[in-house]
């Protein structure tokens, strides 16, 4: 376990924590981007260059921006008078903890079966491209379709209905 990994892990987790705990929604969004960045770096640490850059491009470049846009459009930025946590926050917390417990338990239990340090796979973008156009061409097409549909859907959903004032 390299030092880099630990640093990145800490960054990611802290980012995530702050993202879900902070009061101000915009701060949450920014913290979220930190978490995203940490994950992207983790990808790089895992020699998944392409995935990492894609992560940055999509999440930091697009999703985060979308989120802040949504926040500003919905006046989410000003903190509500009654707290930011829902009434049943405690149960939620417990369940989340339980989920983590189960997962961690599973990981630790199967830790023996997990493979140890392996040689870093040498994969360049060309191979990825070939894979995308070869083995994974159908998923690729489907994702393309999905994205188109999602775009249209988002536009339609967010569009002002006709006749609706403002």
């Amino acid at each position, binding site marked *: 376990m390299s030092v880099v990994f630990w640093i990145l*892990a800490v960054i990611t987790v802290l980012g995530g924590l702050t993202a879900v705990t902070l009061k101000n*929604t915009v701060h949450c969004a920014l913290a979220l981007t930190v978490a995203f960045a940490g994950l992207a770096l983790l*990808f790089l640490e895992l020699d998944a260059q392409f995935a990492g850059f894609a992560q940055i491009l999509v999440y930091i470049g697009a999703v985060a921006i*979308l989120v802040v846009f949504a926040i500003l459009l919905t006046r989410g930025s000003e903190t509500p008078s009654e707290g930011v946590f829902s009434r049943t926050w405690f149960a939620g917390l417990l369940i989340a903890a339980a989920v983590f417990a189960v997962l961690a338990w599973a990981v630790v239990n199967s830790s023996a079966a997990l*493979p*140890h340090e392996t040689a870093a796979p040498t*994969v360049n973008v060309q191979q990825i491209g070939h894979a995308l156009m070869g083995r994974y061409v159908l998923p690729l097409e489907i*994702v393309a379709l999905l994205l188109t549909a999602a775009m249209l*859907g988002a536009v339609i*959903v967010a569009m002002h209905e006709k006749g609706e004032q403002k």
Partner: protein
Amino acid sequence: MTPLAGYLLVAALVFAIGLAGALTRRNAILVLIGIELMLNAANLNLVAFWRYGPHPELLTGMMFAVFSIAVAAAEAAVGLGLVIAIYRHARTTDLDEINRMKG
């Protein structure tokens, strides 16, 4: 502890955090943020398994991650669009308020 286990633990933690966020926050957008975190945790798992799995040359895990990133983008777009629509309709993004099918 093997590196893979480390990554998996981090992923699990991030997932749990995301879940906690999704479960405890009032603001719909924050819930979406939580969901995004969970998705990312899953991606981390995929990539980690790809990296330490038996056949990294097949790129399976990586591809899964890339595809799920794409899907996540779509999901975010639609979700936020919905949030905005709901906000326009109910003038709030507080999930505790938004609990009626009719309106």
